[in-house]
Each structure stands twice: as C-alpha cells, then as structure tokens.
C-alpha cells in the first residue's frame, strides 16, 4: 500500500480528532482569556484569579495526590496479583483474567454506587469490621479520601493489571530458573530480575491509573461528596453551577497540564526502562 493510501485511511479519524478534540481545546484556551463570565471582555483576569488563590494550588495538589495514592494502592495490591497470575496454571489464568477484567464490563456509575453500599455507615465493610471486633464504632468512609482511594483502587485495578500481566508474561521463564540456579532466593530474584524487567508494564499501569483516577469525576463526586474538592469537581461547579466558563477553562487547562506533566515524566521513565524485553 502506498503512503497516500495510508493517509486516506487515517483521514476519518484525523477529522474526528481535529473537529472533536483539537478545535474544542483551542476554543477552551480561547475562552480562558476572557475576564467576564459573559465572555465579552478579553483579558487575563481569570488566570490571575485562579493562580492568585492559594485554594487553587491546594485543589491541584489534592488532585495529584489522589492520583499518587491510587497508583500506590493499585501497585501494592496489583503486583502480587500479577505474580500469582503468572504462576497459575492455564485454567486458573482464564478465571483470573475474567475476574480482573470484570470491573471494566460494568458501568462506572454502577461500580461507584456499589461502593456506596459497601462503604456506608451500615455498609458491608463496617459491619464486617464491627462483627470481627476490630473496631467499636463504625468507620466514616464515605466522603473521605480513604473511602475514595479504596473504591478507585478497585475501579482502576484492571488498568494496572492488564499492562503488567502482558509485560510479565513475555518474560523468559528461564530467567527465574537461572537466577535460582545461581543461588538467589525468591526475594532476590523478584527484586533484581522480575521487578526491573517488568518496569515497562508497571510504568504503563501507573500512567493509566494516574490519568484515570485524577480525572474520575463520577467516583470523586459520588464517593467523595462535595466537601472533597478535586479539579474535576471544581471545573463542574464553575461551568455548570456558577456558569463562569472562563474560570472553568483555566481550571481545565491547569488539570490538563498538571496531569500531562506527571504522565510524560512517567512515560519518559518507561521508555528508559524498556528495551530489555524479548520480542
């Protein structure tokens, strides 16, 4: 196939991309440079307002921190699960992959509301902990960051596990045997061979979970409520409650840039650690 024909095949997607993503993005940037919410007075007023307010920095920091916490939780729970998957016999692997992918098959709204039932004052988690005698008072989980991180961890887990498993299952199984034959314990093999070599999958997983959890408006609002303010909620309030579109535009750009910065730093790390895999 010639180069020209390949271009033509890519054209529909390119048109969609330009008209539905690039143009609105430019529009968004344009709107941010208006001082009033009627979008009549051009100026830098909203930028000064957003970045002059310490509250904005707190919201940005909280949003990024939420992403970091969710990433940490998915790594800590997901990595051992990926190892279990790798060691499992083929039949168990099929069941595991189904269980892992299942959250993706349910609507985010359904998953989020399920977590409300789980995390509520009389929810499953509290009842279990109470009946086991671990706590004497019901824990407050809804509308707290802990509850949000717990539910996001479950919701985003497939995004961590799928890249991790795909990279790990391409590792040469002889490497583990070679390491053992050279006298290395399981832990040494894990930290000196398996973890470094699965880094590309780990980085890809972190990237997806981070980008997805920092922008997870529905979960953040439904579980976190209106008292925990992250950038997506701030944008929603400004655009659809207060109708200050220019300010919402500035907040949107702040979210985009801050998430993009972390994501590009991660993918730079990922590129550095890739290239050790066998094809």
């Amino acid at each position, binding site marked *: 196939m010639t180069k020209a024909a390949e271009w033509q095949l890519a054209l529909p997607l390119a048109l969609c991309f330009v008209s539905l993503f690039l143009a609105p993005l430019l529009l968004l940037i344009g709107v941010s440079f208006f001082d009033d919410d009627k979008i009549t007075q051009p100026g830098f007023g909203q930028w000064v307002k957003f970045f002059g307010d310490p509250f904005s920095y707190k919201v940005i920091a909280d949003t990024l921190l939420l992403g970091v916490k969710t990433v940490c939780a998915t790594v800590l729970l997901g990595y051992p699960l990926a190892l279990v998957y790798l060691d499992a016999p083929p039949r168990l692997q099929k069941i595991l992959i189904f269980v892992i992918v299942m959250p993706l098959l349910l609507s985010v709204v359904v998953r989020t509301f399920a977590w409300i039932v789980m995390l509520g004052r009389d929810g499953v988690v509290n009842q279990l902990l109470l009946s086991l005698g671990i706590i004497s008072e019901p824990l407050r989980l809804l509308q707290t960051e802990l509850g949000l991180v717990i539910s996001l961890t479950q919701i985003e887990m497939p995004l961590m596990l799928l890249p991790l498993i795909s990279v790990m299952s391409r590792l*040469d199984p*002889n*490497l583990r*045997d*070679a*390491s*053992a*034959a*050279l*006298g*290395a*314990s399981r832990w*040494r093999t894990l930290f*000196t*061979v398996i973890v*470094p*070599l699965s880094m590309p999958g780990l980085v890809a997983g972190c990237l997806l979970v981070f980008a997805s959890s920092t922008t997870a408006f529905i979960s953040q609002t439904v579980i976190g409520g209106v008292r925990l303010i992250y950038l997506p909620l701030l944008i929603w309030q400004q655009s659809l409650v207060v109708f200050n579109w220019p300010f919402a535009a500035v907040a949107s750009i702040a979210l985009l840039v801050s998430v993009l910065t972390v994501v590009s730093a991660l993918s730079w790390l990922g590129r550095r650690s890739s*290239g*050790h*895999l*066998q094809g």
Partner: protein
Amino acid sequence: MKSTSQNMTAASSSQPAARTLDVEKLSVRYGTSLAVDGVSLAIEPGEVVALLGPSGCGKTTLLRVIAGFVRQAAGQVRVDGIPIDHLPANRRNIGIVFQNYALFPHMTVAENVAYGLRARGVANAEIQARIGRFLDIVQLGAFRERLPRQLSGGQQQRVALARALAVEPSILLLDEPFAALDRNLRLDMQIEVKRLQRTLGLTTILVTHDQDEAMSVADRIAVMNKGKVEQFDTPVAIYDRPQTLFVNGFIGTTNLLNGKVAAIDGGSAKVTLDAGATVTLPTRPDIQAGSAVLLSVRPEQLTLSSTPSPSAWRVEPGLSLPLGAQLVHEARTADGATLKIVEPRRAAPPETSRVYCTLAPDAHPSLFPRATS
C-alpha cells in the same frame, strides 16, 4: 579420555575436586504420563555425559530435576553420595546453561557474571577478581560493560558459561547449549566447552538431540526414549554395538535386512537373509535358532563386488552420490529393501558390474529380534 581430565583436575589445584553424580530410579510424572520413567545413571567425577534423544524423551525434564526446578515422583539424585532432593534449586550449587542462555537482559556482562556471587554474599574484591578471571577464561575480558543484546550468539553463550562457572558449581548442566548457534560456531563452542570442562574438571551433563554433538563432546552417552534410558555407554560402543533397535536407528545411518536364524553355534549365529545370502555373525542371548531377526549394518560396513559368493546377495544398483571424500551408493535387494552403501571415492569398476553386496571384512552388524505376524 577420562584419565586425562582427571590429571588436569589434579594439576589445577585451586579447583575443587570433581563430584560424582548418581541418579537412582528417578521418575517424573506429568499428569497421568511418566516423563521420566525409572532412570538410573552413575556419573563419574569429571565425566561429560550426554543425554541424547528425540524431543519429548524426557532428557530436559531429567536435567530440570537435577537442577531442582522440577520435583520427581520417585527416586533420588546424589552428588558425591549425598542426596540433594530436599534442597531447593538455589541451594544445590549446580550450574546450568540454558539453550537461550537466559542472560539477565538488564545487566551488563560483568553484572551477569557477578550475579551468583552477590547472591552468595561473596566479598566485592573477590567478585571483581572472579569476574576478571572467568571473563578471561571465556575470552570476553573486553566486553565487561556490554549488555547481552549487544553481543553475538556465541558471545552470549560464553557469558552464560562464565556466569554458571563463576560460582564454582559442583555439577555443570548444559541444556541444548549449542542448538541456537550456526554450524561453524557450534563446533568452535563445542571445543571451547570441552576445553573448559577439562581444565576445571567439572562433572557435566549435556542435553542434546544432536547425535554428532553428543559423540564429539561426551565421554558417555545416555540414549533416552519415552522417559527411559535405552543405552548408557561410550560413543563408540553405542555406535558399534547398539543394544536396542531404537538406539540403532537413532544413532547414525543404518541398513536393516530381514533374515532368519538358521543355526546358533556358541556366540555366533548363521543368518539366512531374505535378500538371498547366508552370513555368520556374533549374536546375543535373547535370539534363538529359527527366530526372525533384523540385521542392522552401517552403510560403511557394506561393500559392492562383481564376484558372487554364498555370503553376498544380488542387488540392483541405483543412484551414486559423491559426498565429500565418500561415495554413497543406493542399491535395491531382491526382497525389495533399499540399501545405502558408503565407500571411499576412488577409481572403482562401474557400479553396473558390481551387483553383489556383502559385509565388509571388519563389519560388526547388530542383530535384533523381529516381531513376525
């Protein structure tokens, strides 16, 4: 052969003494089938033993049991008489080189060689000294800081060898180590491995499906089929005196002739060949007079002549192919078998006149019982 390697062991006194390796009645079960079925091998110190057989014969599984990666259903593995079955792979001190080398791709050559030493907590100065020593042994001193992917296949294999040897293992296992190399390099590496093994006096097991490799590298060969050892002997004995029809067919090229034992006299049998001749040859105890037999004879142990005799049978000459210094003739017998006959390439009368095939004077054919319907 063996005595030379032992002398060299004694000469290089810094090396630990070579160990014996005993495998006793070892069985490995995969599901309902036995991958290894009651294998026993007694391997001498400093000896190279090849496990030879077709794929799926259990040779690699046997190696993996010795290394400690696979647990056996029954039987025992002993190094210097001490059972090692209860030890995990990382405490057996057995070196292994894999077919794909399994070098750690994210570590340099030096780090790969140092890996086992660091795992054992060897002091850093000693590690550096051993990296230098073993990379010099495999002639890769200049490649310390390279990554495995920057090396050729042969170089990668030498790194794998240096990595396995650096921890001074008691036994060295080689799992099809030459299979991924091209032909010329393979011979170089076979010589190299043999040289290293001799110098270090290491008891070595080599898994291969390549009979030439087994013949050239090993002191003794265990021919395996369907999880069992069919014959465990020197390469020459296996080639000249195959004990079973499988070994006979697996090692080298052979011609099979149908016949019947006419008479037995002491250790020799008079066999009437269906092709139309009577030959006398050494026999084995399980063959009785009157029984149907298969006579197996190597292509180089047959000759063609133009004179008839009672021990020669008539053949119809077919193609002749020059093969290096030799000439391969094809000939058909009266009972329909196709024979391959190899002769040195020399001025010989045209094949058309030489229509009688006979055993060469130094021929040592093998007799096997033949099932008759």
